[in-house]
């Protein structure tokens, strides 16, 4: 690993101490060109020195999330400097996304292994999306869930014998299209009557033969419940 310059931004002194120690003991290649406990100090340091990387805590000064804004500004003003977020916001997933949107190279949670040499190395090598174990676990969890949903969707397609037209019909129904509009979709080979028949047929499949009267809304909702429709990707056909 090549020597590199780093600026540590941390608003809690005791934590700063620990972080500095981590660098000293585990990442000796790093030259700490400065530590900043607030924004003013950071911008002064940025002006005075040319760091390769800024290790940024999200809480700064009074604000607990100012780091997001700071990250954004760093990205704008110093596009070559790597920014790694190092934060104790272990529960706040929304904040992580905000930080990623702000252009950070990675997020390291102050939990578990804390900052490792490998992570820092990755960032310096230009790798994006560098996360430590706890955050990866969270990401994996979410990923798993979405994959499960996807597979449930496939299952549902098989279980209820849903074809391409069924899916399109249900999706546009959920989007509030009328039957006329659906019949008029590009590549939809059915008239309104057929569509109505298809709707009845679908209703019977989804609700079983003995069901109470079901309107279009309930049908669409049921389709979402059964994962036939992906509620996160509910978009009309490209016309």
């Amino acid at each position, binding site marked *: 690993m090549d020597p590199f310059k780093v600026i540590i931004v941390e608003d809690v002194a*005791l934590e700063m101490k620990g972080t500095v120690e981590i660098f000293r003991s585990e990442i000796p290649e790093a030259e700490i060109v400065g530590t900043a406990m607030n924004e003013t100090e950071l911008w002064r340091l940025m002006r005075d020195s040319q760091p390769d990387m800024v290790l940024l805590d999200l809480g700064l000064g*009074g*604000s607990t999330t100012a780091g997001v804004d700071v990250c954004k500004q760093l990205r704008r003003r110093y596009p070559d400097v790597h920014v790694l977020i190092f934060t*104790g916001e272990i529960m706040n997933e929304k904040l992580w996304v905000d930080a990623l949107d702000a252009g950070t190279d990675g997020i390291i949670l102050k*939990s578990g292994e804390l900052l490792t040499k490998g992570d820092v190395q990755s960032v310096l090598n230009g790798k994006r999306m560098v996360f430590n174990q706890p955050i990866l676990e969270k990401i994996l969890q979410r990923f798993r869930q979405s994959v499960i949903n996807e597979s449930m969707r496939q299952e549902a397609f098989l279980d209820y014998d849903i074809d391409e037209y069924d899916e399109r019909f249900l999706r546009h129904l959920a989007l509030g299209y009328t039957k006329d509009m659906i019949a008029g979709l590009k590549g939809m080979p059915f008239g309104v009557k057929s569509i109505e028949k298809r709707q009845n047929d679908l209703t019977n499949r989804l609700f079983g033969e003995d069901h109470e009267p079901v309107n279009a809304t309930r049908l669409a909702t049921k389709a979402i419940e059964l994962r036939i429709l992906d509620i996160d990707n509910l978009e009309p056909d490209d016309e």
Partner: protein
Amino acid sequence: MLKKRRKRNICFTFAHIIRLMGTQIRILFFIMTQAVLLCLVSCGEGMDAQQREIDSLNVLASQAKYRSLEEATGYVDEVLGKYADSPYRDGLHEAMLNRGDIYGMQMEYDSAQVCYRQVLETSNNDLLCGVADVDMMSVCLMLSMSKEFYDYRSDAQERLANVEEEKEDMTEHQQALWSAVQTDYHMVSMNYFIKMRQDDGVLEESEWLEQHQDLFATDSVRQSIYLFLTSIYNVADKKMVDAGDEMQRNLIRLLSMSRQNGNVYYEILALNGLAKSIMSGGELKPSRWIFIEELIGEFGFAPLELKLANRALRLAKLYGNDFVQTTVLVTLSDYYLKAGEDSLAFVQMEDALELINQHHQKMARTAKRAQEADHDVLYAYTNTNDTISTEMRWIVNPQVVAVPEWMAMVREQLSVVYGARGLKAESDYNHNVYFDILDATRQDLRVLQEEDNLKQEEHTLNLLLWVFGIAIVVLVWLLFLYNKRSREEYRKKVRMLSKVIEVCKHLSSALSDDIEDEEDLTEALHKISDADVERLFPQVKGKDWTKVDYQTMKGLDKELFHVLLVFYEWMRQKGLQYIHFSEEEQRLESETYVFEKRLEENKRQYIEKLTSMSIVNGITPFLDRALHEINKLKTDKNATPETIRERFQYLSELIDKINEYNDVLGHWVKIRQGMVTLNIENFALKPLFEMLRHGSKSFDIKGVSLAVEDTEAVVKADKSLTLFMMNTLLDNARKYTPAGGKVNLYATETETYVEVSVADTGHGMSAEDVDTLNNSKVYDSSKIGTDGANASDIKQNKGFGFGLMNCKGIIGKYKKTNAVFNVCEFGVESEVGKGSRFFFRLPKGVMKLMVCLGLLMQCMVMKAEVHLPSAEVYADSIFNANVNGDYEQAIIYADSAIQCFNRYYLEQVPKGKCLMTLEGAEMAEIEWWKSGMDTDYELIIGIRNEVAIAALSLNRNSLYHYNSEVFTRLYKLTSTDPTLEGYCNNIKMTNRNKKTTAILLGVLLFVVLATYFFLHYRNTQLFIFNLRQFIQLNNNVFTATEQTLPDVLHQNLSDIKTADTVGMMVPPKDSSDQFWSHFTGVVAERNVYESMMQSAYRQQKEVVSSNGRFRAYPMFVPGSEDKVLGVLGVHFIDGKLQDEESLIINLVAQFMSIHSYFSYHKVDEMSELLELKQDERMRIDNEQQKVYVRNQIMDNCLSTLKHETMYYPNRIKQIVDVALADPHAPVNEEIINDIDELLSYYKEVFAILSTCAGKQVEKVLFKRVQLSAQDIGEMAKRSFKKQQKKMQGKTSIKVADEKGLMIQGDKIFIQTLLDNIISLYFEHQSGGDLLLNFDVSDGFAKFAFTDTAFRYDEEDIPQLFYIDNVKYDAKSDTLSGAQYMICRQIVREHDAYSARRGCRIYVENNDDGQGSSFIFTLPVS
């Protein structure tokens, strides 16, 4: 000629009318005659004998009058003398007629006429009057009064025609009389025509008599007359072959008959006639000769004619009829002339003349003109120069009853006799006199009479025409006046009515939102209406018009005033309703306000909890770093002792920091604990159970059945938390009970506590789990239940699992609050496979009020069974109170009695709305009676009467009027006789008959006038009637519901104008809705009506169908001309509406709008408003409760966290310190493992609790609203003022002007932020002013609070917003610097819930060296 015809036409028309009326009169007379007859019959049997006697005497008299006048006079005198007082007037009248006949025979014609006229005037018997008329005819015949003859003849004709119609009911005597009079009439007529030589008339009468011989077949007198007349006639009729012979035969028959019957009169006539016949050269057959001689019993050689004449003269002298005697004398004179004995002939005539003179003198004497009589003597010849003879003077003089024929006969004979004797002058004289007399009694009398009649008619007609003319002029004038007046009246009425409606509209506008109570309402209503009402009804000036009795007014005023009164009362009722509404609204608003304040407070606490959570979150990184260090110590085998020592040193510092933070947290929790108090109250569990039962849907979906058992338990606890606990337990039960299972919620009561249990038939838990749940304060809930067979199932359902922990925490909190809550307990009973029961115990509460209410209701129920008898008791009490003069008490008793009746009514008609009142506008009992309800009306009548008496004594007018009105009405209702109507109708009929008769009596003008008045009256009455209907309608409508309204309208409108159907249409409330309409009955053309109503709605004006039958009236919102509430549609049977009907129906529509608006729309609006307010109140309440529960739970978690984790850091600290104390650092693995174990466990507990607390934060409480900088400035000022009072400082706040700057944020949070900043300012007590400036940069609004004097220590500034800055001051038991933390937390919240990150909060000393600024930024909206 033309003129005459026209007159005749008019005459005909008039006569036609008269005839039409005549029929009526006849009917009337018929009725009267019947009545008289009835009276006669009813006079009894005793009367009959007398009547018969009189009748027979009359018959005798009438028979005797031709035989002997003395005898006849005897009979007549007997009747008139003996029976003068007899009620049998007809008999007396008949006698009177006979007397007249006798006078006539004696030639006392004036006396005869007096007799006949008397009968004509006094008798109403048509028959007798007819007889009198006929008698008068014969008198007129004798006196040669042709005109009068015809008059009497036409009268007789009419009378006889009348009698003809009624001849069926005649007595025998009357029938005889009837036959006689008919015969007489025709005979007299015939005689007249014979005398007047009118052959046509004679022939007509003769034929009639011939055809009706049966009428006088048994009547010898009339037979005789018939014969005589026929004989005279036959002589006259030249067509007869042997007229003389026929006449002789008739005369002989007459002679023999009259001799047989003793009819001297006709015997004389027969003798004389025969003598004349013989003298005139009629050959007498020898057989007849002998027969006549035998008849008269005179044989000898004297010529037969002389014998006959002498005998006639003898008989005539005896009989006493001078005329007949004269006739005989003339015959004798003729005989002597023929015999050449002129002097004898002259002697005869002198005798005749003497007879006349004697008669004249006798008449004159009776008429007391004796002197004149002495000079008025007829002489056979007077040589005077008088141009006018004495006879003519007599004839012309109306005072003298002269018989011209008689004198003419004598003069004629005298002239013949003188002529025979050759005395020309004497003969001429007599001849002239004779001609004069003839001329005076000319023959062309029919023409004469006709002309006379015509003249009479013309006169009458002229008179009538005049009357008509005047009547028409008067009528036209009256009609003109009437029209003018009625138009004026009508205009006046319309003006009045529209003014009244105007007042009503004003009244309706009085209901504003400012009215708070009844007094205000009355005042407002009066204020708006008094002046108008006084202008309309000057008689109420100076009085409270609403208290004026409308009955005291008259005519239109009365009705209109009544309209006003009814409307006023209704408006007042509505007003009271609205007051009630607004009171309710205010109550809701104040409740909402309370909840809002609570919510605000809860949110403030929430933000504090959040802040303390941030402390907890602040600890986590330290813990993680500590764990990291330990990890390094464990894994880094190559670490130098130096490094190890450094690590231990760092570890020590971390633990110190953790302890420090824990300390702050501990103090924070402790200090703030007092702020989060439990809301303890007594409450029934029932409503909560009900609420939970409603939530059973989520159970249904899962296929689990939820049973909530009823409970009456009352507990003492925190309601919101109790609900939260039950909800938590039920949620758990639902989650862990598989489909088909059961969950049961119930409460059991013991002496001291109420145990609420949630039992399920789920998988159950192992004993270990149960033990953990029951005994551990902190546990990893994710592990509970995962060791059983259904582990995977449970894991899938697993929530975050803090529910039970929270429940336990709450129970723990109760226990800490007060000894009363020592009974509180939370527990679990469970066995694997058998389900679980979770329960908690709460102390028993008491609901004192509830118990009282229950008892009260029971009492009421008991009373309800006995209300009618108790009403009776009250009635007695009222009576006694009145007797004793205790009137107030009587009224109180009456009120109680009325309540009894009402209760009885409600029992009969549940939810009935007609309730009796002591006083008011409605009369419930009348409605009861009408609806056929069974109650004791007699008793009610009695009570009303007594109340009226009492009210009268107390001078309470309205009470009196109401009660007496109810009394009267109910009394009349209960005493109605169903036959009364029939009777009234009869009376009416009779009256109408009378009126018709009166009209028929011919007062045409009166008819016209009556019609005029009737029309006028009808118009007024119709108007008033319609008004009454209108008022009735109002009354009915006021009690109708929206559904029944069209029916009520239909019923009442039909009284004004018959309608098929009445419909109402209401426009849609929003665009997606449709018009709503309702029609009465079956409507065939509903679509047509609806479309017309819709067009009326759109055009905002009345729409009328082409045939005028269907009319749609738009109903405007009161006080506006362009807002239509709905449409009233009416289909009339008759499309033509009178002006006043149209007006009234228009008014109905107008009133309907006012009514609908206030009854439905306004009420709907207000109900909707109330509902919204109620919902809003509920929402706020729910929200504040949720925040409250959340705060409580967070508080619990933090408190537990503090207690449970206090031990670990200290223990670790001890170990680390020991390790560090050794300078050689004999750090072994054992120590590191110990620390690792402790730290790991600590971290675990910490994580559980902080996650639990953190869960409560996840639900967003942030309420993002738009706020202007100016708003925030105002908020700051208010806060400043509030805190300034506390501090009593003299400083001020200045807010910079900033318009248009808008930010988004949570108002309560911002308020809290400002409060904290300002509290810091006051804490500093720098003496400087506070300035608030705004700035905007990069999408953030910057708020800078500048303390113009205070400056921070530069070193402190970076640390201000950190936990490190929070210091516990043991002396004041406060935490300094906490405000900064709270402020930071609030800004963080805004940062998180606005669309963008980057809100700042910081403090800086001003560059100019003057003071410092507290700055925060918020996202611009």
